[in-house]
């Protein structure tokens, strides 16, 4: 096991553990903070998968955008935050009611694990068809991505812009106060 792999596993461990804490903790502040950690660890994993641009995007978009938004939302509904901080009895009971959810989630995990275990995926079947082969550590993925986005993925790219505009307009509409409303 080389250091790279070790770091990979550590990152993976961080991802899973922090995610678990995010999900299980009753403390909302801790949960949001650990979400932050998970996202960073994920970005690290992406880097190790030779997807540096994706990792950067992850950090910028998630940490810079999503997380900030969420914090705003928390603050805007801070009463709720406080409420959920002190509800130990409810939390205990919710543990009980969460058991079926846990079973289902575990079931899904089992199915996923079984269906992905032992696959000979060193080179997925379809991929050998591509002459360009595997990505190497030295490749300029940003360059490659740029070219792809302007050729193969031009249509989705443009469409995404329309989509974002709509999301912007819509979210703004929902959030803003009415012109004539009092």
């Amino acid at each position, binding site marked *: 096991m080389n250091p790279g792999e070790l770091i990979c596993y550590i990152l993976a461990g961080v991802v899973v553990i922090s*995610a678990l804490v995010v999900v299980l903790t009753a403390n909302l502040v801790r*949960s949001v903070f650990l979400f932050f950690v998970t996202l960073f660890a994920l970005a690290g994993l992406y880097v190790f998968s*030779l997807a540096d641009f994706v990792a950067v995007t992850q950090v910028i978009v998630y940490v810079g955008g999503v997380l900030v938004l969420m914090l705003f939302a928390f603050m805007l509904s801070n009463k709720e935050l406080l409420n959920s901080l002190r509800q130990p009895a409810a939390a205990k009971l919710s543990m009980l009611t969460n058991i079926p959810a846990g079973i289902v989630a575990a079931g899904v995990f089992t199915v996923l694990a079984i269906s992905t275990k032992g696959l000979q995926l060193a080179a997925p079947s379809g991929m050998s068809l591509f002459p360009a082969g595997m990505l190497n550590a030295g490749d300029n993925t940003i360059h490659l991505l740029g070219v792809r986005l302007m050729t193969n993925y031009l249509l989705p790219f443009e469409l995404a812009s329309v989509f974002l505009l709509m*999301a*912007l307009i819509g979210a703004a509409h*929902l959030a803003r106060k009415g012109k004539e409303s009092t």
Partner: protein
Amino acid sequence: MIPLEHYLLISAALFCIGLYAVFTRRNAIQVLIGIEFMINAAVINFVAFSKYDKAKLGGQVFALFAIVLAAAGVAVALAIILNVYKYYKTIDPGKIDELRD
């Protein structure tokens, strides 16, 4: 480089953690976080397998789109959650149950 199966396993774990969050968290924003976990689980797969797809780089592109779309989705969802908060003074999805059989 860790084996691809391990990536799949990690992503599966993250997916299920997200799923669990979606099922159980009593705060709409945490449910959203769960959804983000699920999306990120998919992103792990895309990114990991994108290594073999140098020609099209479909995985990475998809990952980018997924992240961006997720962000937009979160923005909209948060706007909606704030609206809900306005009426219900709570964002516990379990308590928002006026509409039911």
